[in-house]
């Protein structure tokens, strides 16, 4: 291992993979070190896949957070706000980051999302607009291999999707008919499950096995697969990934310039230092601000970029609501066949709804292992009883994902008295739901109720809402000035010359859609920006 690099990237998820891929495309000899605190999970292994198939066990749960402690259970992290925002299950601290278990939904934000404050008075505007990112959205879709159709997306685009969409399933049919009757525009869910992209992945396309939490083929984009292949096939002589390396702090040599990072090498069991011309923090929405906060020095007594106490603040999530309804009689014997949805609507992801918080709806039949069929057989039910149960009725599940607005009081910070199984400080999550949160969900329910009514389905009046940290963002938000946020339009931390945050943490706001494609686009854009800086 060298002790000097052009660029050190902290974290190995999609931001690190897309950024390093672009940097190396621009200069195959670029000197890049990726430091990952976690370790690797074996991918594309048939025995692990079959273990999931028969028992529902996943190989990476040991690298996830535990639930918060209770009086009777030890747990991890601390919930300090008025409302509990669970972290457990929402991220994976391993090589490849959370892409090891993400669902592959690859939406673009809409142009109005970049003008949130101008349009609604909530939050802030992004310091860039949709047109600044459009080209990179296209590149990101190529990079992660997105299948989709522009119809119903309502996002301007110069090029079509790289691959055509997954056709709607038979289970989508009644929902499509209801949408049509209600004049709700619908669309395919854009999915990064094609595998073979024009960049660094030789994987086969999706085989629709429905075991997407652990894809046995690598069809769904996963950053660790791409990073492995970059190391294995592309002969980048100065590209290095080090696992088990827990970055403790970014070291500054002046008020504005970082000299490198200090990390704990878990294999050698010792502290090490490396220097770099540029440092990119790509540790996700929770770890990125925590690293800036604990990088305290005489130059940055409150941590890097934290003179205004904004690092870690404005924590934002997207509530996920599940509505179910039962259709009497199922003559076509419809069952869950895939673990990802093919039908959604962005009808309510519109400028008209922006002031109250946009939302999308997706028809996503529950895809659980063990399945209903296997459970019935294992219980000893007869073939006749099973066929009767399948034909009698069918449960439709419509999921809503909605936008809320970030607030200064919601934040994350280091729980310095406790270290987790990865070697990272545990986290204090201080979160309180914004005013009107529950009322907005009731409004969404009313829209969904109309859809169920059109289908002739009996809707369960009770719906479940998850406010987990899966799509957490904005904790180092991008802004026009250091009074409003932590990083500038180039993702550079205000007041520094060479420290960047490339993560959902850098989002200014997040609309109603999944953040990963936008993060990939921002990462590729940063790659071009840093390549120019290196040349300059």
């Amino acid at each position: 291992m060298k002790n000097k690099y052009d660029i050190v990237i902290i974290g190995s998820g999609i931001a690190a993979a897309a950024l390093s891929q672009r940097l190396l495309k621009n200069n195959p000899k670029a000197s890049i070190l990726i430091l990952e605190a976690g370790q690797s999970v074996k991918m594309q292994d048939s025995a692990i896949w079959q273990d999931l198939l028969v028992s529902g066990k996943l190989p990476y749960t040991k690298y996830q957070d535990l639930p918060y402690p209770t009086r009777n259970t030890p747990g991890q992290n601390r919930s300090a706000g008025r409302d509990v925002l669970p972290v457990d299950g929402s991220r994976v601290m391993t090589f490849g980051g959370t892409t090891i278990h993400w669902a592959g939904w690859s939406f673009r934000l809409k142009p109005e999302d970049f003008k949130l404050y101008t349009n609604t008075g909530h939050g802030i505007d992004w310091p860039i607009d949709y047109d600044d990112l459009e080209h990179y959205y296209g590149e990101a879709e190529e990079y992660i291999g997105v299948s989709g159709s522009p119809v119903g997306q309502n996002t301007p685009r110069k090029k079509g999707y790289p691959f055509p969409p997954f056709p709607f399933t038979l289970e989508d049919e009644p929902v499509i008919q209801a949408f049509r009757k209600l004049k709700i525009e619908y669309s395919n869910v854009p999915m990064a499950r094609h595998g073979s992209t024009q960049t660094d992945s030789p994987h086969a396309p999706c085989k629709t096995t429905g075991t997407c939490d652990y894809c046995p083929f690598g069809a769904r984009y996963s950053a660790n697969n791409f990073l492995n292949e970059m190391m294995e096939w592309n002969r980048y002589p100065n590209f290095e990934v080090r696992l088990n390396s827990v970055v403790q702090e970014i070291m500054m040599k002046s008020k504005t310039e970082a000299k490198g990072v200090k990390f704990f090498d878990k294999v050698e069991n010792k502290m090490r230092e490396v220097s770099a011309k540029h440092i990119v923090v790509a540790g996700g929405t929770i770890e990125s601000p925590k690293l800036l906060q604990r990088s305290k020095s005489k130059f940055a007594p409150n941590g890097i970029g934290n003179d205004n106490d904004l690092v870690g603040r404005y924590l934002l999530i997207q509530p996920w609501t599940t509505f179910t309804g039962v259709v009497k009689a199922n003559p076509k014997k419809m069952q869950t066949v895939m673990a990802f949805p093919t039908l959604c609507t962005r009808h309510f992801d519109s400028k008209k709804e922006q002031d109250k918080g946009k939302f999308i709806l997706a028809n996503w039949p529950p895809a659980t292992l063990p399945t209903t069929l296997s459970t019935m057989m294992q219980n000893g039910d007869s073939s006749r009883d099973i066929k009767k149960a399948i034909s009698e009725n069918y449960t439709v599940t419509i999921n809503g994902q909605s936008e809320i607005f970030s607030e200064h009081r919601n934040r994350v910070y280091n729980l310095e008295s406790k270290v987790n199984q990865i070697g990272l400080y545990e986290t204090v999550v201080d979160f309180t739901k914004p005013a009107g949160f529950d009322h907005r969900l009731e409004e969404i329910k009313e829209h969904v109720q109309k859809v169920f009514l059109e289908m002739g389905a009996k809707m369960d009046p009770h719906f479940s809402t998850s406010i987990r940290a899966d799509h957490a963002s904005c904790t180092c938000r991008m802004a026009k000035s250091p009074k409003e946020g932590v990083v500038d339009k180039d993702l550079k931390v205000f007041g520094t010359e060479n420290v960047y945050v490339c993560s959902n943490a850098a989002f200014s706001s997040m609309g109603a859609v999944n953040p990963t494609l936008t993060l990939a686009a921002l990462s590729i854009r940063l790659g071009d920006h840093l390549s120019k800086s290196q040349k300059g």
Partner: protein
Amino acid sequence: MVMYEKQALHPLSDTLVSLDPEVYGSMFNLFEQIGIFWGNMTDATPCKSLLYTFMDGRMRLYPIYRVYYIQSGKILDALIKEMGNEKAYRFLFTDKKINQKPIETPLALVRQKVSNEFISLQLSLGGFKKFGADNYLGYIGGAYIPGEKPPYRIAKEQIHEK
């Protein structure tokens, strides 16, 4: 890169001795009986090698499965001797007590650690089709390749780009 991959092996995997062919045969008989009892797989023979690969995978991840399979063969032999083939498998597949957790009897072990897992596998290898679908969680029906017939039932209405 292989050097970065944590091996999906149990530390004892390398010390495992292969199962006797009789044990594999006995387990295939059990697998075959699932299709006969529920009428959802008329010929299990094409699945034989997939079943054996599955068993090898289970033993690789959890070496104790070698003991489960050996003991299950013996327990099933005794049960068949006592009840006859058809009644023995009917009892194994339908008795409620032996499906209760925790596992406390030899037959509960056969049901929960072997038979129930074979049911999940059998469904994913095509046993689900008799229940009316074209695709199923775990079924490898073919790749989704644009332009070719999708490996699942699709809605009549699709979006066509202009």
